[in-house]
């Protein structure tokens, strides 16, 4: 899937339109607009304090934007994310991971992935009565949930650690488990907050391979392709795996395009090197 092709042809998955976020007098994000396309890995980059995480938190519902619109083009219609509460955004099809990993440390890897499927499973419990009595309909649903969890454990190479508490896994494995957990919510868009932070080069390579497989729908058995939006500091990863890069600085979008173009953009180089601060 070449970047140039997807830029022109693919329909959008997420439209960010004039997104503005003010904290009191501080404008953290100032009228940022960009589009993430279906089947792409879109990267959001920028120097520290550029407003990447704020944009990210608006998309995932942890902040409510002061102004602007966020539209998710999921399979079952368009969701206006800026009007939804955080858990509704997750249900609409946006899954996220956290910069400082937020797993359920006292629960096993498998349980973590089952918690991610709470919403569809809950619908099958018949107000708890069917499940309380252990009846067939719920059992079938739970078996399907376990199968999906196992598929993702296999995809993230964690199958042999399935029954270990998440808190006991090594750091790299925790990062992978968090991605697996996000994928178990069956999202349309996977949002990753610095997924490569703290990984060694070998783990970073594995992560890049996993993200490409998620984009192409080959990561786990029977799972559809999912578009990816990521914030990343590691330029190596950004340049190798992204199809589209959006650069922020001081809360504004300063460049956008395929990695090869963005890499040679003069304003981007200036922003990263701290030169020519002429605004």
């Amino acid at each position, binding site marked *: 899937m070449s970047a140039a092709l997807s830029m022109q042809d693919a329909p959008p998955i997420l439209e960010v339109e004039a997104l503005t976020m003010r904290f009191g007098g501080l404008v953290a994000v100032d009228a940022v607009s960009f589009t993430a396309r279906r089947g792409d890995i879109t990267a959001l980059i920028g120097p520290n304090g550029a407003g990447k995480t704020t944009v990210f938190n608006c998309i995932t519902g942890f902040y409510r934007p002061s102004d602007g619109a966020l539209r998710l083009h999921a399979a079952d219609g368009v969701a206006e994310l800026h009007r939804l509460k955080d858990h*509704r955004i997750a249900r609409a099809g946006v899954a996220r991971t*956290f910069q400082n990993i937020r797993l*359920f440390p*006292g*629960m096993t890897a498998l349980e973590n992935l089952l*918690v991610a499927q*709470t919403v569809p499973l809950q619908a099958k419990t018949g107000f708890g009565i069917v499940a309380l009595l252990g009846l067939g309909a719920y059992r079938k649903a739970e078996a399907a949930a376990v199968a999906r969890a196992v598929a993702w454990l296999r995809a993230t190479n964690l199958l042999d650690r399935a029954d270990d*508490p998440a808190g006991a896994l090594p750091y790299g494995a925790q990062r992978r488990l968090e991605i697996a957990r996000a994928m178990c919510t069956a999202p349309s868009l996977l949002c990753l907050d610095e997924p490569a932070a703290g990984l060694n080069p070998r783990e970073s390579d594995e992560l890049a391979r996993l993200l490409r497989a998620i984009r192409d729908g080959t990561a786990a058995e029977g799972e559809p392709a999912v578009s990816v939006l990521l914030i990343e500091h590691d330029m190596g990863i950004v340049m190798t795996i992204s199809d589209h890069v959006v650069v922020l600085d001081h809360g504004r979008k300063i460049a956008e395009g395929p990695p090869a173009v963005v890499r040679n953009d003069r304003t981007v180089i200036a922003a990263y090197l701290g030169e020519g601060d002429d605004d």
Partner: protein
Amino acid sequence: MSAFSQGGAGGRITAALRDATIAAAVAFGLFVVMVGLRTDVSPTGALVLRERWTEVAMLCALVFAGRLVVTLWGLRPQSLGQSPERAAAMARAGKLFAPLLLAAALVLPFVPGIGRYELDLGILVLTYVMLGWGLNIVVGLAGLLDLGYVAFYAVGAYSYALLAQYFGLSFWICLPLAGILAAFWGILLGFPVLRLRGDYLAIVTLAFGEIIRIVLLNWVSLTGGPNGMSGIPRPTFFGLPFNMSGEPGTFAGFFGIEPDPVHRVVFLYYLILGLALLTNWVTIRIRRQPIGRAWEALREDEIACRALGINVRNTKLTAFALGAMFGGFAGAFFATRQGFISPESFTFIESAIILAIVVLGGMGSQVGVAVAAIVMIGGFELFRDLEEWRMLVFGAAMVVIMVLRPRGLVGSRTPTIALGEKRAIGAGHVSEGRG
């Protein structure tokens, strides 16, 4: 600590002696004023200062010896990250222990030598086991620190008393109604406190418990205020009352046995045992359900729950409601057992005892809570002969348990589902929840 090992056994003893001397010195400093000097009223009516140096010396010697034992024989808190083998061994022991405990509870009324007093104590202990299991849903699973649990116990008790007095409803109709009403109050309390966490949640729930008690105390026209409500109907054996007349319409008469006041006590014993086991069964089943897993996930990390699409508000409310419902059942049972209730039975100390049972037992562990209830309530009775020293012994026992097992008797967590064998998760990984 490394200095001890270099110095060998001799160095270790010297260090332990020094440590114990310091402890004794601190104890001396405290006890000189607290125990050594005492003001008494002399026969002439004047205040005199009495000196009690023997007691001070005894206490200091006790502290010295105790500290020496602690340092030399390693009476230290176990490290939180205890080995998985150890946790697995504990889990295996727990698997055997729970059925044994249940069997003992089932045959207790028929064990020779078990009289009315022992059965009454058993009923009391089982009431607290049930309350502990109910609160365990809120505190142990969902990680919401609730200091006002006794409010739901009170709601259950007064629901039965009022429904029986004003509408003449029987115990078996009132029991589910008491549970529903308590659950309703649980949701009512849940709404305003949804945004609060940790200490703030604890304070508001504490206040809620007091509000309920003070309303019961002051609404004299409805509840009788401080005089309480008496003449609450006793339970019947599916319509057959327990009384001494032996007529055909009574329990004894129907089954053709000699009327005996113990029948009712045995019936109450099995009733509370059944109610407690119902609480346990529901909790165990619900832990393996999406809602139960969501509760535990909420305890572990609320923000991650939101990111997974879990409705945190509803999840918390169900935990409050279900916990409160079992509190309400226990309250209705309490009312029918006592035949008399007053706001005095529902003070904050009850909430504190129930919470202590949950914390002591190990948050989230069913067997641990049962054992803690037996130890706390049973132990409290056991030390009755010690009179005013009872509280001291009781407090010391709690301190010892918390020093030895800071995460409760059973601190580990059993996974709800596993691909292979279920292995207990060490207490070090499991969070306690911050509301």
